[in-house]
């Protein structure tokens, strides 16, 4: 790019909008969908896309990952990473479920706390997630240990807590008012599950927060150049705590949704979700070196993960092959991301 030379004469500076970087990722999504469509007609003799049920399930399957990924994207933009999301989902699912049981259950975790309004289960779940994120953020900000280690510790401990909570027993028989949050509704004949609505709502909120608020600007600044951010007067420590706390809160929300959908809490819930969430962010264009990324890209990245899973199942590809190919696609996405960054540096 040599635009800076052109303008030597005139000094008219505009503020023009460029094509957002998600366009290329969206292209990838459409490309993958088309490939499945064509392969579908050839191999299975059916359309991949012309199936409302399937389209709805694609997003439903990844909505929990998507909610987590919205938080993880913000952490990665600051130059960090959050490995604890999956374990927090498990822990929160246990806590929320234990407060949403019906009195029909003779072995409820808290026999005196049954048949309550679902609000308590939800609030408790969110609080646990927020606390976990707050601890992550404080560790990263105050002790300056690498985020990888801080959140790895939380990942192990939160999983342990989830198992200890009921000594490994699942928490079942949840109140209908709570499991309602995992249900679907018909919107203009299109089955729209509530988890998907929650995911999209969260995505919109944080897309706006990152793009249009001071919180967002500072998040990018810290990831782009922490030293320059500090000299620009940004309090890096307190901002990082905010970002990790938000990521924890969203993991908590994902845990609540998971429990509601499954109508139970199990200590093994959410295993390896953090990796899918990171993958979704990275596929969506978030750079692991920080400073770059957008929620809209992450949403597309999440949907790509969903399309892959759904498409492979549709084509009756075995589960083992699915994982193998998924791994390759994630690595390929990061390679492309890095080349894109190198080009930017050379420009």
């Amino acid at each position, binding site marked *: 790019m040599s*635009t800076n030379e052109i303008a030597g004469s005139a000094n008219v500076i505009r503020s023009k909008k460029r094509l957002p970087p998600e366009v290329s990722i969206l292209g990838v999504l459409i490309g993958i969908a088309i490939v499945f469509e064509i392969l579908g007609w050839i191999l299975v003799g059916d359309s991949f896309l012309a199936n409302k049920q399937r389209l709805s399930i694609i997003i439903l399957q990844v909505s929990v990952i998507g909610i987590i990924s919205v938080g993880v994207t913000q952490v990665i933009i600051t130059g960090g990473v959050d490995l604890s999301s999956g374990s927090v989902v498990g822990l929160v699912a246990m806590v929320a479920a234990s407060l949403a049981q019906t009195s029909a259950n003779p072995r409820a975790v808290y026999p005196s706390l049954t048949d309550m309004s679902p609000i308590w289960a939800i609030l408790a779940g969110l609080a646990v997630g927020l606390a976990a994120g707050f601890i992550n953020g404080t560790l990263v900000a105050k002790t300056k240990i690498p985020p990888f280690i801080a959140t790895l510790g939380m990942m192990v401990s939160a999983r342990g807590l989830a198992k200890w909570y009921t000594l490994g027993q699942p928490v079942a028989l949840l109140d209908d008012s709570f499991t309602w949050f995992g249900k679907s509704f018909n919107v203009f004949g299109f089955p729209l599950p509530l988890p998907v609505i929650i995911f999209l709502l969260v995505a919109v909120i944080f897309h706006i927060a990152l793009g249009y608020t001071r919180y967002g600007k500072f998040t990018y600044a810290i990831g782009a*150049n922490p030293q*320059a951010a500090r000299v*620009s*007067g*940004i309090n890096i420590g307190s901002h990082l705590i905010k970002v990790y706390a938000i990521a924890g809160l969203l993991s908590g929300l994902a845990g609540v949704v998971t429990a509601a959908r499954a109508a139970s809490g199990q200590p093994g819930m959410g295993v390896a979700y953090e990796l899918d969430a990171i993958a979704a962010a990275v596929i969506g264009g978030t750079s692991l070196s920080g*400073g770059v990324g957008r929620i809209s890209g992450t949403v597309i990245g999440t949907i790509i993960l969903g399309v892959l899973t759904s498409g492979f199942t549709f084509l009756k590809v075995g589960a083992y092959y699915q994982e193998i190919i998924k791994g390759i696609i994630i690595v390929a996405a990061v390679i492309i991301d890095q080349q894109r960054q190198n080009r930017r540096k050379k420009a």
Partner: protein
Amino acid sequence: MQSTSTMEAAPAGGAAVDGGYLLEVENVRKEFPGVLALDNVQLKLKRGSVHALMGENGAGKSTLMKIVAGIYTPDSGTFKLRGEDIKLRGPLDALEHGIAMIHQELNLMAPMTVAENIWIRREPLTKLGFVDHGEMHRKTADLFKRLNIDIDPDVQVGTLTVASRQMVEIAKAVSYESDVLIMDEPTSALTEREVDHLFTIIRALRAQGKGIIYITHKMNELFEIADEFSVFRDGKYIATKLSHEVTRDEIIRMMVGREITQMFPKEEVPIGDVVMSVKGLTLKGVFSDVSFDLRSGEILGIAGLVGSGRSNIAETIFGVTPADAGTIDLFGKPVRIDSPSTAMRHGLAFLTEDRKETGCFLLLDIQENTQMAVLQSGYVKNGFVKQKQLTKDSVEISSLLRVKTPDMSEPIINLSGGNQQKVLIGRWLLTKPKILILDEPTRGIDVGAKAEIHRLISKLAGQGVGVIMISSEMPEVLGMSDRIMVVHEGRVTGFLDRAEANQVKIMELASH
């Protein structure tokens, strides 16, 4: 240090002190984008001698050294080693030719042992291909004995003092049987006793017929250790002399002896009340007892050599590294500045020295780079950025500063250094500072942009802003400042008024 007589008696490896040139570099030219770093420069190094390189910051010493050490390739020039023409393909190639550089920033691997560091890539092996640690220890011990260094070869480098690490670096260079050793300000982090030890080793190496190129800013070291010296100025070779032939004053004159040819658009502006009063400011181990007043409309220049503590003083005033002692009064009131955001609340702004490291957000665009500092204090309502207004004002300030770009969404990385600097200045102007600290505001930018930035600084002073300007460029300091504070080794060594200041006076205060 024990007697060195045993070392001086050591065999000189056939390299008799015969006055023949070990290294001859002539007509060297090196251009970087926008800067002619070396213009027809020469250096002739004799066997068995210590040759000092002298010159101001930016004179071209380091560039020349990097060429000799194979780090840079010269654009043109001849390069003779032991009388033969050679062309170096890289630092490793230089090392294999017997040219070793001891870097200012030490290049050792802290978690590994001393012996492992010295013999890396050349580890003695057993018959089975494993590293022979016994042999490696023995070879290291031998080497240290030869140099009279007392360090345990098996200790981790990370546990050593800076001085000891430097000894290890030197031993490593010697272990390559290098004939040419380059030392770039080797004493900058050493105590007096450590310096004595270093000099003993240097003398021993000289006695063995090695040629040592020694970069220093310290005049007394020149007389103590160097046989010869060459002076450089603005990328040009000035002269080579024997060090016992000249006086200190003559050297200083050779180093600064240029007239101010550039014009500085400094306007005379009324100087107002004291806006900042610094008393006894101290950062342990870096600088101490710094006191000065700054008035509105005044440009206070801070001069001093690199590493004198100039930038650290600015960083401390701005709260990047809060002070250990001392007070700062702003507009007559004592304040405690413990972070940059506190400093900004009091109306300070700080353009840092290193555009890449602490200035630009290279991944972000011009608009985002411009607005980042002001978001602390304005253009935000209920957390939301008032982007329309902010963009309008950013565009306005960028136009005023003549940032050369067609639009604000251009990534800042695509701009030239001078334009990046203008964006960063714009960032601070948006915050409407009352006190502006500029650290090397025109480093590495072309003459045109330089003049524009000078005009701007002058204009801001005219509007009543108090300006502190740190600069390594003498003409800039002399041309722009109302008053100059000179710093040397973490202490203020004097103030010079605009009328009385000249290069020689500054240099004297700066090199004591």
